[in-house]
């Protein structure tokens, strides 16, 4: 059974329709890359999954359990939204680390507040996570003392600390200098090797091609094309995909 299933998802802001019926599913351990030009609805889709936006119509199920149903018009309680959110982790384009806490405290804050374990265990597993993203020597540093790439790796560790079923990345390298993107992408690749289920919105085409199991090309609020990386990148069927890929690769 698919770990994530999105059915017929709609979202509009005022009169602008941003998502116009999104359908896809994701198997456990799969990596899905979402590509497409800005304004195509990629980020909005991620935000709907994380309940930062509420979709207007459609269904979202995780592990067979419906966590959002636009047809049920009862209001979901804050408590329930918080619980549903924990199925997902989200890594932001702008990192959004908490500046007043050290790298370690950034990772342990939420698990401690949610009391998922004893403080000692939370501390130990946070150190393990920071080690895994290559920052064991930076646990006591504040975000302002870290480079963008290091900050983003802390943010990944922070998202992993709550053991989400699906980890979402919203253009994780777009705010980074080119020489720093590599270290973040390596961490994501390493997560794939550990069978993490991931959903990555990205402009790094080469990376999407290499790491993703499945690629979605979104344009104007619909899924224009979906398939394996070789299907989408090497044999795109839709004209829009072709045009987008031509533009993306012509710089090289």
């Amino acid at each position, binding site marked *: 059974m698919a770990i994530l299933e999105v059915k017929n998802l709609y979202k509009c802001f005022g009169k602008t329709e941003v998502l116009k019926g999104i359908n896809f599913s994701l198997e456990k351990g799969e990596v899905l890359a979402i590509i497409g030009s800005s304004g195509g609805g990629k980020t909005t889709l991620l935000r709907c999954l*994380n*309940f*930062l936006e509420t979709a207007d119509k459609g269904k979202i199920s995780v592990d067979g359990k419906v966590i959002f149903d636009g047809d049920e018009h009862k209001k979901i309680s*804050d408590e329930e939204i*918080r*619980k549903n*959110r*924990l199925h*997902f*982790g*989200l890594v*932001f384009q*702008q990192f*959004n*680390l*908490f*500046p*007043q806490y050290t790298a370690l405290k950034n990772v342990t*804050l*939420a698990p401690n*507040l*949610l009391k998922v374990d004893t403080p000692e265990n939370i501390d130990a597993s946070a150190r393990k996570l920071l080690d895994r993203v290559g920052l064991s020597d930076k646990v006591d540093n*504040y*975000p*302002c003392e870290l480079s963008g790439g290091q900050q983003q790796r802390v943010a990944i560790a*922070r*998202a992993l600390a*709550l053991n989400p079923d699906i980890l979402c990345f919203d253009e994780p390298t777009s705010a980074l200098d080119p020489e720093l993107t590599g270290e973040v992408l390596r961490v994501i690749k390493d997560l794939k090797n550990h069978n993490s289920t991931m959903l990555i919105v990205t402009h790094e085409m080469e990376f999407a091609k290499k790491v993703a199991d499945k690629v979605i090309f979104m344009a104007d609020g619909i899924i224009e094309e979906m398939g394996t990386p070789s299907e989408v990148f090497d044999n795109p069927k839709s004209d829009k995909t072709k045009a987008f890929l031509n533009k993306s690769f012509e710089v090289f």
Partner: protein
Amino acid sequence: MFLDVTLNLLQNFLITLKLFGLTLLFSLPLGLIISFGSMSKFLPLKYIVKVFVWIIRGTPLMLQLIVFYFGPGLVVSMFEAEGVNNGFVDLMRTLNMADPLVTAVIAFVINYACYFSEIYRGGIESIQIGQYEAGYVLGMTKTQIFFKVVLLQVVKRIVPPMSNEIITLVKDTSLARTITVYEIIWAAQDYVRNDGLLWPLFYTGVFYLAFSGILTLLFGFVEKKLNFYRG
């Protein structure tokens, strides 16, 4: 003589400090509550609070002191003439009988809470939405996000404008004499009146300077303490 004057003025400066301390104690938290009101999504509450802040910030503190000092007495006599007696009249009666210092504290607290509320609002609204969203996706509640993520960042940003306002408060306390709170400047004026001495009046400035000097150092220390992170 100099020592006598110093001791006497110091004693009356304690009244000033008392008014200062009590005002801060109550207006700092009240200001936060008012700032929540002015940011409320419930529009009637938001606009009532905004109008209230406008009235308080838009009229002289001295006038507010006079209203709080004479107002309750007027209300009581008005209602007594009508033969009305209820909880509200009782409250006004209590306020009318209250020590002028208490009346002054009430007026100062309301006035400063309104100014503080705008500083809080500025600080809270300057926090990037991403900080809240990061908290949300980590499953935190709104309260947890406010206290564990946002508050310290707000405090760091509002220390400079707050120190400004608090140092103004030190000197504004002298307005309380208009409603018969005997404080340092009044005590100095008695020297002019009774002994024909002018210098004690000038001398009061030293007390204000010394105290605001201490506060300046204190705020500098707090700012430095909060400089352990940037952003």
